């Protein structure tokens, strides 16, 4: 395997307000072209990791220890100006809600070409040409018309395509996808997942895929990190974690999922004792 593109080592974060830990010595490694699922229920800390990488943590959260090595540079200790440039150019974000991720007051063209013009210093004409080819790449019909459109004129699926196009605009090495399909209908979700995977294969991009849906993980991720209470509970290749989970919590979570293919298997509530035991386990260092 190639050299890792992202190495997170012992990352810890606390809430400034009451000092409760949000991440507890999280470590993970991501290689070029790999998709790693970051799963857990609400409060597990999965999106905090993505935010820490992008340096967009809310002011109430503070990183207390650890390293985030991206292409061998520690993002946590880099000076601010080169850091901003590095993140802008090499790391992209696909956010959860396509409804709020596009500025309602600006045309698609302006939003799609922002990065090209600001970071690459591209001219309006080259940026526009690049935007057109990006829209074609994400299979948008009538890309000319879409460039002139405002976000409210596009459907949710179309907007998410535009956001994927924007994420790939600068050929980043890493994309952080924060629940990118949670707000979409299932049929649209599948199209978007496929599009993302195909784009990623074509460009060799690594993806950190934050989600709560184990089904999505099974179908699109290569490897997975399962979190509970800010701590890594289990991690490894998807096949191993989902088919032969080692930790009882991973098994229980799988059993709780409703299964349309095997209705007799799913929907078993996670035993309260297990949750209580996990809480204690996570809290002890």
């Amino acid at each position, binding site marked *: 395997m190639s050299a890792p593109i992202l190495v997170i080592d012992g990352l810890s974060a606390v809430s400034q307000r009451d000092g409760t830990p949000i991440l507890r010595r999280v470590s993970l490694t991501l290689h070029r072209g790999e998709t790693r699922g970051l799963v857990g229920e609400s409060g597990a800390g999965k999106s905090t990791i993505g935010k820490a990488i992008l340096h967009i943590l809310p002011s109430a959260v503070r990183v207390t220890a650890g390293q985030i090595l991206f292409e061998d540079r520690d993002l946590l200790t880099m000076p601010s100006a080169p850091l901003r440039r590095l993140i802008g150019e090499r790391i992209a974000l696909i956010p959860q809600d396509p409804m709020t991720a596009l500025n309602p007051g600006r045309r698609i063209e302006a939003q799609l070409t922002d990065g090209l013009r600001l970071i690459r210093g591209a001219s309006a004409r080259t940026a526009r040409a690049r935007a057109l080819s990006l829209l074609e790449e994400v299979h948008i019909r009538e890309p000319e018309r879409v460039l002139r459109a405002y976000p409210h004129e596009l459907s949710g699926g179309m907007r998410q395509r535009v956001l994927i196009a924007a994420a790939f605009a600068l050929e980043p090495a890493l994309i952080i996808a924060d629940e990118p399909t949670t707000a979409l209908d299932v049929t649209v979700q599948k199209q978007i997942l*496929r599009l993302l995977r195909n784009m990623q294969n074509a460009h060799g991009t690594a993806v950190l895929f934050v989600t709560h849906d184990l089904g999505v993980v*099974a179908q699109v991720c290569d490897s997975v990190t399962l979190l509970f209470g800010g701590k890594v509970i289990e991690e490894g290749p998807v096949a191993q974690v989902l088919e032969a989970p080692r930790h009882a919590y991973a098994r229980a979570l799988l059993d709780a*999922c409703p299964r349309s293919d095997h209705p007799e298997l799913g929907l078993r509530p996670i035993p309260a004792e297990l949750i209580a035991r996990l809480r204690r386990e996570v809290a002890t260092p």
Partner: protein
Amino acid sequence: MTDDLLRADELKIVFDTPRGLFKRKGAGVQALRGVSVRVGRGETIGIVGESGSGKTTLGRALLRLADVSSGRIVFDGRDITGLGERDMRPLRRRMQLIFQDPMASLNPRHTIRRIVTEPMLFHRVAADPADAQRRARAIFERFSLPLACLARFPHELSGGQRQRVGIARAALLAPDFVLADEIVSGLDVSTQAQALNLLKELSRDLGLAMAFISHDLSVVRAVCDRVYVLRQGLVVEEGRCDAVFESPKHPYTRALLDAIPSPRIDPGWLQRDQGD
């Protein structure tokens, strides 16, 4: 069938689009374009569809909380399509509703006690306040809700607790029919499983008929006997859950089913296309 508890024939609903300052009156949006459903006694049906399919509108219409443009709704052998608010009142106890957003569906200024006991007193399900409280406490224990919750306000509860209070409020009226509108879509899988199991138990114990509205087919399959697949205001497929899920007939149903990612690894799934 004669033992249907609730049936709706050829429901059509047209919403008027509001008139704006610079807009002429719109033609109206057809939310339902002729939908027929029936719910047998003690039966749980699923109503599935993607956004814009009209599933929530259908649910509200079944309970006479939205006005229908044409069609007929029959509850327990009685045509309730044109019934006034006053005549509906005695029937209201028998047809209850559980909401998607438990926070919005509980009055923020009332205590949980008031929220769950007032309907019982109103419909004389409970003889007096003490009786109502006794019943509320019994169901709270059954739902593993702390009794202290009764004296609290909705915002002081957790999301899962609020959802269970919503279920308790409906169940305490001992209804014949309950409409559950996307009640687990905001919950984590573990809480979701807990709420769904509670509902399944209830319907079995009380002989409740239920209509379960969801966008999530796996949830519907887990709790429903029969299912209606809605698309753009029309039923495209209906039938027993096993039949519909094992061998869907309509291409849209196939596409929907195929689009559900299963937690079991299926290497070809992502690139495979079905339906449409």
